[in-house]
Every structure is written in structure tokens, then in C-alpha cells.
């Protein structure tokens, strides 16, 4: 037995090591848990070194520019060129400083104007693997960073915290295929889910073919994912294409444009409004509203009588005009609406009242000529002749039956 084990010792150890790692893998996949101890050891070993290297690089870069390149110029022994070189170097250095200051100011400005509580962080390393889409930043759990927090720049969202370690955090970038975030389009307010494609672009999933998304339209976070606060810029739609059920929408993320050096981690998210799409600022001409006389479809205008404009101007709707007409008809016949008992005589609504006429105060003696002639057959005659108004106030004309 001992001989057998020593004979197959190598393969036995290989199988044991692989088996142990398979167990480790199965534990993580099945329980959806991470073996934090091993990762913690690796991250705390590597990230401080990366941070030191980054500091050294930053320091030596300026030194090399200020000294080595300057020294090269002096070796050339050309005074003018040296001075020019110095000025160029200085200019470049100042531009670099200005750029750094601009970035810092831009971050600070964004941090102050956004209601969410944020903390600035610097990217110090990228993850291993050729297709890795995650980076490490120099802020960890000691700075209040937690797993799942959003990582943004003023230009747009960058990713979310995948794991927070004491000295550093791992950030999953928006371009990673496993990344997802709820987005909403700026113009048409169409909702979808942003997913990474593994390279520089992303796509938006779950947008029905019937919904409208335009190329060039801006996308913002919708806040539905409970990771990113609503209203942060995401990117621009570069292409849309109808698919089987959902549209195939490609997005260029704006947060990663030009590389990422400094980022902001959202410690406490506060939702914002989606900014309104800027429309043309040139004033639009609106014609004046039509005069009331023109709005009057028939009636007095048709009979040649002009109604008082001031009085009619308040009659904005047909219902108002009809109500006014009935009121005049009622006044002309000394009838007060709402006072008669059920079954009492209603006013004659077919009377045509002269506009501007005043109602009779009291009914006088019956007129010699009937004010209202009974209608001919085919129309129901009124139950009784209406009270006789003053002849000069009210012009009562018989209504012709329809021919």
C-alpha cells in the first residue's frame, strides 16, 4: 500500500489539490458566498504595493520631466532651444497641474451640487484576467465604503463596489457582462436595463420594440436598481435596432470616456430628477385668440344683429352661451328658472329674444296681436300663450316649422 501511494504520489497530490479547490468553488457557487479570508489576504498584500508604486510613479514622473528632460536639453547646449524646452516643459507641467486641478475641481463641484453623499477615490489597480472589467480603488471599508455602493464620475456612472476591503475596494465596471443597472431615456422616458458587453460599449435590455428610443438620446439612471440614485448620467445611445421582442440598443457609457483615474463612491444615495431635454430657446409666435363675434356660430350674427362684444366675451363656451340664451328667454317671459312647481307651465324656448333687450317688469294687458302664433301641425303647440312682453323690448317671432 505504501509503495502504491509513493508510486502515485504526484497524481494523488494533484487530485487532492484540485479536489480541494473544487470544494472551495462549489461552496462559493452554491451558497453565493465569498471566501473573504483568502481575498482579504491577497488584496491587502497587493493593493498597498500598488499604491506605493502609484505614488512613486506620480513623484518620479514630475521629477523626470523637470530634471532628466531638462538635462537633455542642456546637453544639446543650445540656449534658445533649452529655454524653449523649459517653457514647453513648464507649460506642459502647468497644463498637467491644471488638468489635475480641473479634475479635482470638477469632482468637488459635482460632489457639492449632487445631493448624494460621496467620497472621492483614486484607481490604483485593475483586476487580473485578460477580459477583466473591474478595478481597485484606494478607499475601503475603513472609509465607509460597502459592497454594492455606486461609483460615479461627473461624466456618468462607472460601476459599483463588488467588494470592500479595509484599504481598498474592488469596483465592477459598467462594461462588465455581469453588470446591470436600471436606466431611463431622457427624451422618451423609456425604461430598460443597462448591461455590459465585455468591451467598451454596453447595451440596454428589456426595451420593447414598440417603445421609442432614439439614437443620440441620453440615458440616465432610473434608481430602480437600488444601487444608483436616480438622475445620474449613463451615456448616449449609439444605435437602436428592433429585435425579436426587445430592441437591440447599444450605448456608449460616458463615465469611462477618456479613462478613469479619480472616481466618487456614493455613500448615501439621494434620488434626483431626470434633467429636462433642452429644447430650442427661440420664441414661438402664437396668434391672438379669435374675436368672440367670429366664435359665435349662429344666432344674432346670422340675423344681422351684433351682440355686445364685452358681454359676449365672457361667454367662453357653448354651454355658457346656451345658458345665457335661456336666461334671456326666461326673462322675456318673466319666468324664473327653478321656482315653478312640477307640472307648471314652462317658458317657450323657441322665442327669439332681441339681443340687448330688457325683460318686461310685469305682464301688461294681452296684446292685440298674439305675440306667439300657435305652431302649425307637426309641432307641438305650447300649452298656453306666454305672458306678453313689452312690444318695444322683445321681438317675438314665430318659429317656422321645418319644411
Amino acid at each position, binding site marked *: 500500500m505504501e509503495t502504491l501511494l509513493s508510486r502515485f504520489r504526484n497524481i494523488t497530490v*494533484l487530485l487532492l489539490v484540485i479536489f480541494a*479547490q473544487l470544494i472551495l468553488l462549489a461552496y*462559493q457557487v452554491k451558497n453565493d458566498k465569498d*471566501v473573504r479570508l*483568502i481575498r482579504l489576504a491577497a488584496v491587502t498584500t497587493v493593493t498597498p504595493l500598488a499604491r506605493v508604486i502609484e505614488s512613486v510613479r506620480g513623484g518620479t514622473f514630475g521629477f523626470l520631466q523637470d530634471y532628466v528632460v531638462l538635462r537633455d536639453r542642456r546637453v544639446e547646449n543650445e540656449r534658445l532651444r533649452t529655454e524653449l524646452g523649459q517653457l514647453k516643459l513648464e507649460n506642459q507641467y502647468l497644463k498637467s497641474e491644471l488638468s489635475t486641478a480641473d479634475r479635482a475641481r470638477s469632482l468637488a463641484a459635482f460632489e457639492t451640487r449632487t445631493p448624494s453623499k460621496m467620497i472621492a477615490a483614486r484607481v490604483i*489597480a*485593475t*483586476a*487580473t484576467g*485578460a477580459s477583466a472589467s473591474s478595478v481597485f480603488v484606494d478607499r475601503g471599508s475603513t472609509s465607509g465604503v460597502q459592497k454594492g455602493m455606486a461609483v460615479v464620475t461627473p461624466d456618468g456612472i462607472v460601476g459599483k463596489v463588488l467588494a470592500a476591503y479595509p484599504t481598498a475596494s474592488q469596483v465592477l465596471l459598467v462594461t462588465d457582462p455581469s453588470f446591470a443597472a436600471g436606466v431611463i431615456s431622457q427624451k422618451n422616458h423609456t425604461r430598460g436595463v443597462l448591461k455590459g458587453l465585455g468591451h467598451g460599449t454596453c447595451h440596454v435590455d428589456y426595451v420593447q420594440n414598440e417603445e421609442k428610443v432614439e439614437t443620440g438620446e441620453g440615458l440616465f439612471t432610473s434608481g430602480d436598481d437600488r444601487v444608483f440614485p436616480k438622475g445620474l448620467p449613463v451615456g448616449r445611445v449609439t444605435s437602436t435596432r428592433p429585435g425579436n421582442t426587445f430592441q437591440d440598443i447599444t450605448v456608449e457609457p460616458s463615465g469611462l470616456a477618456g479613462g478613469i483615474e479619480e472616481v466618487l463612491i456614493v455613500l448615501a444615495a439621494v434620488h434626483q430628477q431626470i434633467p429636462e431635454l433642452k429644447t430650442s430657446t427661440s420664441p414661438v409666435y402664437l396668434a391672438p385668440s379669435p374675436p368672440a363675434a367670429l366664435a359665435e356660430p349662429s344666432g344674432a350674427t346670422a340675423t344681422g344683429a351684433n351682440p355686445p362684444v364685452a358681454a359676449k366675451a365672457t361667454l367662453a363656451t357653448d354651454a355658457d352661451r346656451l345658458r345665457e340664451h335661456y336666461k334671456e328667454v326666461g326673462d322675456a317671459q318673466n319666468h324664473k328658472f327653478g321656482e315653478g312647481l312640477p307640472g307648471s307651465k314652462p317658458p317657450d324656448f323657441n322665442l327669439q329674444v332681441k339681443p340687448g333687450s330688457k325683460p318686461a317688469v310685469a305682464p301688461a294687458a294681452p296684446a292685440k296681436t298674439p305675440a306667439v302664433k300657435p305652431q302649425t301641425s307637426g309641432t307641438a303647440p305650447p300649452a298656453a300663450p306666454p305672458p306678453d312682453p313689452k312690444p318695444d323690448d322683445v321681438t317675438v317671432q314665430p318659429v317656422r316649422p321645418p319644411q
Partner: protein
Amino acid sequence: MRYSDDHVLSHSQRETQISRFRAWVLFLVPLAAILFQVYVPLFFRFLAYLELPLIVTIYFALMRRSPIGGLLVGAFVGLAQDSLSKNPLGMFGITKTIIGYVAASVGLRLDVDHPFIRLILGFLFFVFHQFIFWALSRGLLDQQVNFETQRTLVLGLLNAIVAVSLFHFLDKLKHRA
């Protein structure tokens, strides 16, 4: 010039000629390789395709000619690489464990000091590494990833060229008794 089988297959004397390294070399070189992989691509994105941890694993496994030593180096480097990736721990670990074991077994039979052999081995082991990782991703994690053959072959050649140069440098770190 034809490289004869006599040269390719190692002599029995060579089998016992195991390269030894100091402990700090065995620790710092893989660490530096991992550090390179996590830091340098920040500035030179294309260098992310350089699998320095794999190259270092292959080198130590080939040179030490110990299958157990090779698989342990592979497991250590792989797990460290896993820790800094978004993968579950064990994906790179299992892959590099197998590579370390196979490389050490090959190192017992071939003259691994010759640059041409190193180039071929570097290429083959890179392709093998990518294939195992792809198979594990599909088989164990159920990830729908494609094996990009053409890209893998090109990257394999690139990594093999870098491996030959790096092996030459690492040869100088051998412990001479």
C-alpha cells in the same frame, strides 16, 4: 539546423539537474507578476493580455522539475489571481494547478533550457490554460462564453515570445550551489 530528438529528449543526467531558487525569488517573482498584471494595464491597456502569472508558473514548474512543487506554485499563483479577480476562488487556481503539474512533468522529459522548446511550450501551455479556463467557466459556472480560437492563438504566440525573454532573465535568479 534540425533539432534532433536526442537534444529534445533530456538525458538522464539532466533529469536530476533540478534548478533551485531562493525562497524570496519563489515568493517575490509571482507577486511581481501579479502586481504587473493589476497595475500596468491601467496605463497600457493592451498589456492586460500578457499572462505573466502563467508564464512565471510555467517557468518554475519547468525548472524545478517537481510535479508537486509545480502544482503548488500553480495553485498559489492561481488563487492569488482569483482573489484579485471577480471570479470565484478556484477558477485560476485549478487551471494553474494543472498547468504547473503538466509543465513539471514535461520538464522532466525535455530540454527546457533551449529557447525554441521554451517558445513552443509557452505557446502550448497558454492555449491549454485558456482552454481549461474556458471549460471550467462553462462546466462549473455555467457561463456562456465562447472560445475564441484565433485570438487565443495570437495571444499565445505573443505570450510565448515574452516568456522566452522572461525565462532568460529568470535564469539569472537560479540559486547556484
